[in-house]
């Protein structure tokens, strides 16, 4: 029993950054914009959070400042994506990919001086985990229970109609992408401040990509995202738990999450999950064009 509870607790802890990043990606995809830059924004958020916490000493007040900085940096990086894809109407997939390259590169470059520096106080994980779950519930409520959610969904499903109704398609999309970036930054901050209070180049280790895949897996539903994140969290836990304990080589466990993402995407494809995608996902909106 204790074993099971422990496993669940660890799964929640591993799943927290996944849930945060997944909710962010889900939010901007609901507005019709795919941002594959999650991994890069996470790396930048992780660095920004760490740098602020490290620079401002180890007081408790600095933690929230650091988290805020991470979210701000994530949002700023996302605005680059918004500008290129919404205003300049470039290909969203390629733009997101380049944002990942840029984010990982810039974080690795500017973070070099923090490599190997420890952060002395480790904040508890549970407020973040609870916060992420609350955020998922809140996002679910906003999407389906409020006017704001309706606006967001219409912009993602049928921007031309939303535009006709007088909604500001461009503004809503910018806001959604920035909010998504802030959540990716938050996920990064969780990694570098809470989960393992340190900075190393490449510490996001593909988590951002898994979060992007998770959005498809959970069919763009914030509530199901909670279970998806815990499921992958459990997988990460098992990966560490079983490493070196069995005859199966550790590399098999290391590649398990990625293989599982492929499997999960294939299953989603088999069930026709893609049908749940927002209608205008990935398409730039240009007034007067069908």
């Amino acid at each position, binding site marked *: 029993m204790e074993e099971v509870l422990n496993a669940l607790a660890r799964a929640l802890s591993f799943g927290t950054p996944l849930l945060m990043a997944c909710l962010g990606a889900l939010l901007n995809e609901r507005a019709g914009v795919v941002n594959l830059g999650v991994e890069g924004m996470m790396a930048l958020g992780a660095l920004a959070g760490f740098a602020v916490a490290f620079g401002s000493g180890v007081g408790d007040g600095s933690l929230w400042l650091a988290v805020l900085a991470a979210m701000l940096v994530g949002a700023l990086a996302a605005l680059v994506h918004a500008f*290129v894809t919404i205003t300049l109407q470039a290909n969203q997939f390629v733009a997101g990919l380049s944002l990942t390259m840029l984010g990982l*590169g810039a974080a690795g470059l500017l973070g070099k001086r923090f490599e190997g520096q420890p952060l002395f106080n480790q904040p508890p994980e549970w407020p973040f985990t609870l916060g992420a779950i609350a955020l998922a519930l809140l996002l679910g409520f906003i999407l389906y229970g409020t006017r704001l959610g309706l606006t967001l969904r219409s912009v993602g499903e049928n921007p031309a109609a939303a535009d006709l109704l007088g909604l500001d398609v461009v503004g809503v999309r910018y806001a959604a992408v920035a909010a998504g970036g802030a959540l990716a930054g938050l996920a990064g901050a969780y990694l570098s401040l809470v989960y393992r209070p340190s900075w190393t180049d490449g510490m996001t280790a593909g988590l951002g990509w898994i979060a992007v895949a998770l959005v498809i897996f959970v069919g763009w539903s914030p509530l199901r995202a909670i279970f998806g994140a815990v499921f992958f969290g459990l997988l990460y836990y098992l990966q560490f738990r079983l490493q070196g304990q069995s005859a199966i080589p550790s590399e098999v466990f290391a590649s398990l999450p990625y293989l599982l993402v*492929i499997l999960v995407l294939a299953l989603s494809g088999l069930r026709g999950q893609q049908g749940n995608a927002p209608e205008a996902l990935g398409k730039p909106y240009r007034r007067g064009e069908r």
Partner: protein
Amino acid sequence: MRLEPLVNPPRFRVLWVTLGALGVAFVLVGGLFAAYGLNPLEAYRAMLQGTLLDAKGWQEVLRRSIPLLLIGAGLTLAFRTQFFNIGAEGQLLLGAVWAAGVALFLPLPPALSLPAMLLAGALGGALWCLVAAWLRGRLNVNEILTTLMLNYVAQSLVIFLINGPWKGRDARGYIYSDRFAEYQQLAVLPGTNVHWPTLLLGVLLALVLQWVLSRTTLGFRMRVVGENPGAARYLGISGVRVGFWIALITGGLAGLAGVGEIAGIHHRLIEPGQLSSGYGFTAIIVAWLARGHPALVLLTAPLMGLILAGGDLLKVSLNMPFRIVDVFSGVMLLCLIGSEILVQNRIRWGR
């Protein structure tokens, strides 16, 4: 300010817009150099001086261009048909794995060993890419995510092999395979690391692909599928089947690049990070710059080769992380796709 579509964009507009975008990219990266605490002009000077104005530097640029040429030529076709293969890193690794498998364990007459390695490598890369193409064709799974996930899997596979069953007898604390025999190594230009047979192969294949694209039925199908999927359906062209061809070609070329790296430079299967060293991602920019023309890769691959070699220089002389190359890639790609709108439209100031 508003945009006005150009019905017939002037011929050289693409060139000017592209050069402008690259110019903006270099200015932006310069800003990051400054943020890192380096005089941008100084950094660019170091990069250029050490590569273009130096005999050793030229060799480095050339060596770095070989995998970029091979992968880039394939990716050009892939992007043209809207198949976003981001997994060239993994396909390169699988090519290296298959070739190393042939080199280490298949008793072949010496004369046949190298050709067999090249074939096996191409096959290994092609099959790895085919997984993603199959999932996309049959189950509508986004190929960006699958090819990328397969990169991570490929890395684990290589580590498993060189740390386990294929671990070299002389490796001790390190992880790499046994060294290949003399006849299993690609010839190099004397005194350099430039494995010229692969270079020659890359140049030839880029030209062949250009010919395939513009002169054959398969090429015609690729162009239709890429430019107008609706028309392709009407013409009875199977997008899925064209996707398979694309996967075989791009994956195969990335696999060949992997063979070149291990048979030409390292002479054994080594740690995946060092082996692929980001070629798969850098080649994306090579392909994007070539704008759907495989032959143009002959120009764009050396450009990115120069940036990779320059990144090496900055690492050695200024102790800068090699990540600077990712920054270059990301910023260049963002500027390139962002400038696309200016190729088809003209800006009109005022109302």
